[in-house]
């Protein structure tokens, strides 16, 4: 199987979606300083994973489904969710995507195929397999994408689900975004394969499914790798484990503190915990967003002027989202008791 290369127009679309994720996440991050107190709890950003997210979602069709983790802002933006409603959700407002009941960790947009997230590491992986069972029964060639991090690969839910998904040949693609850190623990400190210098994709071998590792900073490579896995799943060939290597450019999440302490984004763990400034600076130099812009501009696919125009357009879109969310009212108090039961 080979995945058809993306034409110029689609490549520009990919770049724009990457930029939209980046700009959205920057807006979320700025909210902590520009609008203190507006975002509560714990927020996890997808900056650094844009190429992996968008490259994976190029193949998404109507009827397909996606489930992810608490680091969930990127996917719905690409699938077509309204950033205004997303930001309002993150601000806990009535116009939020989930009516202010879920927040940053639990964005859900069923109308766009985003069925939800679990905030418990690994717990959403079996949910994706269940959705894939439904797709298998319906026989419409629909596939399910399950996104999770490298840390989740040490959870029982991961191993139990990969076994069943392979056994039942479920149409699901497991995309493990390996960002090298489980919160503040290095992958090699908690993963036997990583410690042995093996790719984490090797775990697929235990479950008789293909396991591939891809440069998650290159959207075209991800497009091809995840595309092959999706084609295989659609054709009834069963699941694939894709290890997409990314570098999380922000810390795991914002500062964890009781009310009254201003929240902010601390320095990345590479610097704050391990003193590896060189590693972090190298990651910044490899930032997938400017990297892909460079590829498109130097390849003649996109002019610098057009690239700048896209940036301005996207910045305006996200600042409108912030303005909308700030104006959105808090939900009615009684709404806290709605939607407990169907």
């Amino acid at each position, binding site marked *: 199987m080979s995945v058809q290369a993306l034409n110029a127009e689609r490549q520009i679309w990919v770049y724009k979606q990457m930029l939209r994720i980046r700009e959205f996440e920057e807006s979320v991050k700025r909210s902590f300083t520009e609008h203190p107190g507006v975002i509560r709890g714990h927020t996890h950003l997808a900056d650094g994973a844009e190429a992996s997210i968008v490259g994976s979602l190029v193949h998404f069709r109507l009827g397909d489904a996606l*489930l992810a983790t608490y680091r969930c802002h990127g996917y719905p933006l690409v699938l077509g969710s309204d950033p205004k409603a997303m930001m309002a959700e993150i601000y806990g407002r009535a116009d939020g995507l*989930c009516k202010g*009941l879920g927040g940053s960790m*639990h964005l*859900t947009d069923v109308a766009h195929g985003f069925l939800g997230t679990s905030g418990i590491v690994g*717990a959403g992986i*079996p*949910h994706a397999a269940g959705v894939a069972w*439904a797709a298998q029964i319906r026989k419409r060639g629909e596939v399910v994408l399950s996104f999770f991090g490298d840390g989740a690969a040490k959870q029982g*839910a991961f191993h139990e689900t990969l076994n069943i998904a392979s056994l039942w040949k479920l149409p699901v693609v497991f995309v493990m975004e390996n960002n090298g850190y489980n919160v503040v623990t290095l992958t090699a400190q908690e993963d036997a394969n990583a410690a042995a210098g093996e790719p984490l994709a090797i775990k697929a071998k235990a479950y008789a499914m293909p396991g591939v590792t891809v440069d998650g900073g290159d959207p075209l490579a991800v497009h091809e790798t995840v595309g092959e896995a999706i084609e295989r799943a659609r054709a009834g060939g069963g699941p694939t484990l894709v290890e997409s290597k990314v570098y999380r450019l922000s810390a795991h999440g914002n500062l964890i503190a009781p009310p009254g302490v201003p929240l902010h984004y601390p320095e990345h763990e590479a610097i704050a915990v391990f003193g590896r400034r060189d590693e972090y600076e190298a990651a910044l130099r490899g930032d997938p967003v400017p990297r892909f812009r460079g590829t498109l501009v130097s390849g003649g696919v996109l002019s610098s002027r057009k690239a700048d125009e896209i940036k301005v357009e996207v910045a305006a879109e996200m600042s409108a989202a912030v303005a909308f969310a700030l104006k959105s009212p808090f939900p009615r108090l009684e709404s806290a008791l709605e939607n407990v039961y169907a």
Partner: protein
Amino acid sequence: MAQLPFIAAIDAGIHQEMRRDTSVLYFGQNLATTENHPFVAAFGHERVRVTPISETAEIGIAIGAAMAGLRPVVELYMAEFMLVAMDQVVNEAPRFRYMSGGQVKVPLVLKAGFGFAAGWAGQHTGSLTAMFMGVPGLKVVVPSTAADAKGLMATAIRDDNPVVFLHHYLLTLEHGEVPDGEHLVPFGKAEIRRAGGDVTVVATGWMVNRALAAATKLAGEGIQAEVIDPRTVAPLDLETILGSVAKTGRLVLVDQAPRHATVAGIIAGDVAEHGFGSLKAPIIQVTARDATVPYSEPLEAYVIPDEQRIIAAVRGVLENRR
């Protein structure tokens, strides 16, 4: 009407709904391993599947299938096996509708036996009902008759929420009249198993039988106990219990779980708050003694509430002393 053992009545409920609705799935460990399995023969492997010993994945897959529009029934065999996957039961299944602002539904049934006080020792005998009843978004069903087992299972499958269906293992072979054809028992509607005006006794599962046996003996002494079986503890039909207490003024709660892990304690709190004016005596709770269920027969019997302890509690509440 047919005389059916409890366990066959549950199967009849599942069968009824699988025949009626092709979106109902049934799966679990050691199930459907041959073509002769009655559910496989009737509905095929697409909808009836054997799973590995992977409770987290089994229940998690049920959640996903439910979000995608199907109605899975997971055969878990023993309530304790849900403990292996407690995150999926209490922190995944009941959360998604809420956290998504009502965008998804998670209609699934977790079928598990409990309370197997027949020499199964410490890890297969728990009465874990109260662990689930307070979780917003979950419904919890505890049938005590074969007819209710069928009708409550059918209702559980049709319900749009995750339902924990707990059947007491010592009732497995108890026969009872079960309605033929479509049979549904509503949630949140307690059944008065025996009417009486002197004292209200509330019990679930196998404890209903013990409460009824005690009530029969007490009737010989001229004491008329009203025995109420809530049938579902989430939702809980507090109205029927409060109505009975308003009449009798006395309440005995029987629960197979240890003292501080009971449904009884929850009901006692609600009655103390909302029915205090009716009470002529303090509420008495008859619960298991605070120990892991022991293996040895006389010890097991000592730990779990029996007829004598129920009778003593009723006499106590009538004499207005503790």
